[in-house]
């Protein structure tokens, strides 16, 4: 049983403690609470460097100190505080940095509301548990044999066929009916690879529809997207050793993952507003009357500074879009402003929560909208890599990881 230490403030009074424990139970883990003495809490400033007025935050910090001094107490850590609490946001980030700096225990941080459910937490918990449980499998650097990966995403379904460390077939369809879309993408990949389905030794599945699709096709591996995207990103970018940062701006949510030797260390998964997702770029393309595949090229010709846009909320973002066009702004400036706005949201809301270390790798379908990685480069002041087949990252990661099970 994997032990996840919960360091938190407010979860029990928000009424979500049962949900946290249910999510942990679903992924085969249990929540533990490291014991500390009153002296540990009173002395927290000496060891942690800061003390705050909220007692429960000091308790969380004292528990972090205890875990670092006794790493056998927990296999992983989840740091959770109330959404919209400034004091807690500072301490949440400091606890994560403290544990990262003093141990190798994986940490997940999350800000919750009373509406947080076990389902919201499931993917994050699953990734945390996988990092602990399958370290050996995650260390795999080469794909072997003939394997397939399917990424059943919220907007698109992707599939790849891999043979001896090479991608030999790909398929990409919009997600409509989850099972049919998976079958269509899979068929397309098989056709392009020029093989028979029966020859495939194992299939790995990821994405929102992974449980349904995985069960339907009897997949050997059903895995959340944090783990497979990390593996896929470092594999395709040839950055399997050392640190890396993976950014995936999806159709429904965004992931920022701090990776070390191909294994996710810390990550955040956002999705509070569609204004910071691929959906907003789709909407922008539609409003500008261009195909989504052309939006990036158009954006590269524009300057975001010429348009006032903030897509923190997709409704306000759309208002900015309509206003700017009605004021005569150029479509290329509007396109770049939309890309900049999405990148800025991810930078402000998520990249503050992970260690951004080079190489920075952008993946997923949105990374092909050229204006988006360009905007991220301007914000981070580092070169952003977009590997070949970046849109198939989840499927590649699944095909790579499932090949590791062939030897078992």
């Amino acid at each position, binding site marked *: 049983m994997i032990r996840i230490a919960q360091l938190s403030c407010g979860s029990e009074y928000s009424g979500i403690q049962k949900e946290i424990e249910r999510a942990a139970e679903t992924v085969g883990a249990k929540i533990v609470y490291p014991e500390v003495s009153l002296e540990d809490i009173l002395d927290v400033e000496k060891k942690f460097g800061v003390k705050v007025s909220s007692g*429960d935050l000091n308790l969380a910090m004292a528990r972090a100190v205890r875990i670092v001094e006794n790493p056998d107490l927990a296999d992983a850590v989840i740091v959770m505080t109330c959404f919209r609490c400034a004091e807690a946001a500072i301490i949440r980030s400091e606890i994560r940095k403290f544990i990262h700096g003093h141990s190798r225990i994986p940490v997940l941080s999350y800000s919750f509301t*009373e509406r947080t459910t076990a389902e919201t937490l499931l993917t994050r918990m699953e990734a945390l548990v996988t990092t602990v449980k399958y370290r050996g499998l995650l260390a795999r650097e080469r794909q072997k044999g003939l394997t397939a990966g399917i990424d059943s995403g919220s907007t698109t379904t992707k599939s790849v066929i891999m043979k001896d460390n090479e991608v030999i077939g790909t398929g990409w369809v919009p997600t409509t009916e989850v099972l049919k879309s998976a079958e269509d993408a899979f068929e397309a990949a098989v056709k392009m690879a020029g093989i028979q389905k029966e020859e495939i030794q194992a299939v790995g599945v990821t994405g929102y529809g992974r449980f349904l699709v995985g069960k339907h096709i009897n997949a050997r591996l059903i895995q959340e997207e944090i783990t497979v995207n990390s593996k896929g990103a470092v594999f395709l970018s040839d950055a399997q050793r050392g640190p890396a940062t993976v950014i995936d701006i999806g159709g429904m949510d965004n992931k920022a993952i701090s990776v070390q030797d191909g294994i996710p260390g810390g990550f955040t998964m956002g999705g509070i507003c569609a204004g910071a997702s691929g959906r907003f770029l789709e909407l922008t393309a539609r409003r500008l009357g261009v195909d989504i595949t052309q939006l990036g090229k158009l954006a590269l010709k524009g300057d975001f500074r010429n348009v006032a846009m903030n897509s923190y909320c997709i409704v306000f973002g759309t208002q900015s879009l309509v206003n700017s066009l009605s004021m005569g702004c150029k479509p290329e400036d509007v396109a770049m402003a939309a890309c900049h706005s999405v990148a800025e949201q991810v930078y402000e809301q998520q990249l503050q929560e992970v260690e951004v270390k080079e190489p920075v790798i952008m993946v997923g379908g949105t990374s092909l909208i050229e204006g988006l990685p360009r905007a991220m480069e301007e914000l981070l002041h580092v070169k952003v890599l977009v590997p070949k087949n970046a849109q198939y990252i989840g499927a590649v990661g699944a095909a790579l990881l499932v090949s590791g099970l062939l030897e078992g």
Partner: protein
Amino acid sequence: MSKVIVYPPTSMILSDLVERMGHKALVVPERVRELVTANDVQSPPLNVTPEEPKKGLRYAAVDVPSGVRGRMALIGPLIEEAEAAIIVEDPGWLTGCAGCSRTNELVRLLIRTKGIPVLDLSYPTDDAQAKLFVHKIKAFLGGLK
């Protein structure tokens, strides 16, 4: 007999002093006891459910963190019920703590703006101050109906 709310609202020492003087102390542990001993245990350990932060909207807006509103769902009704209050400044965690500084600020504000008699005290740091502390509380409580 008056209903007296104490701050910190989890302080058993202050609660005991109030009860000894023949008044009703309004403290959070009693409310927590009601929840944890209820037959319908939905969310251990405190049995606070997502409904409590919604009830807390009576005291704080939706953009106030859910943990504050959840705590206020327990403490707010006690403030409404209170006829007098004792507030101890800088009490230290041994005296009692709601765990959240924002909740503490809101609780003090709501007590002070309610218009009931309030005794403000500093937390005693030596024996002489402690005796004076108890004496002041006794005099305040003695003056209540």
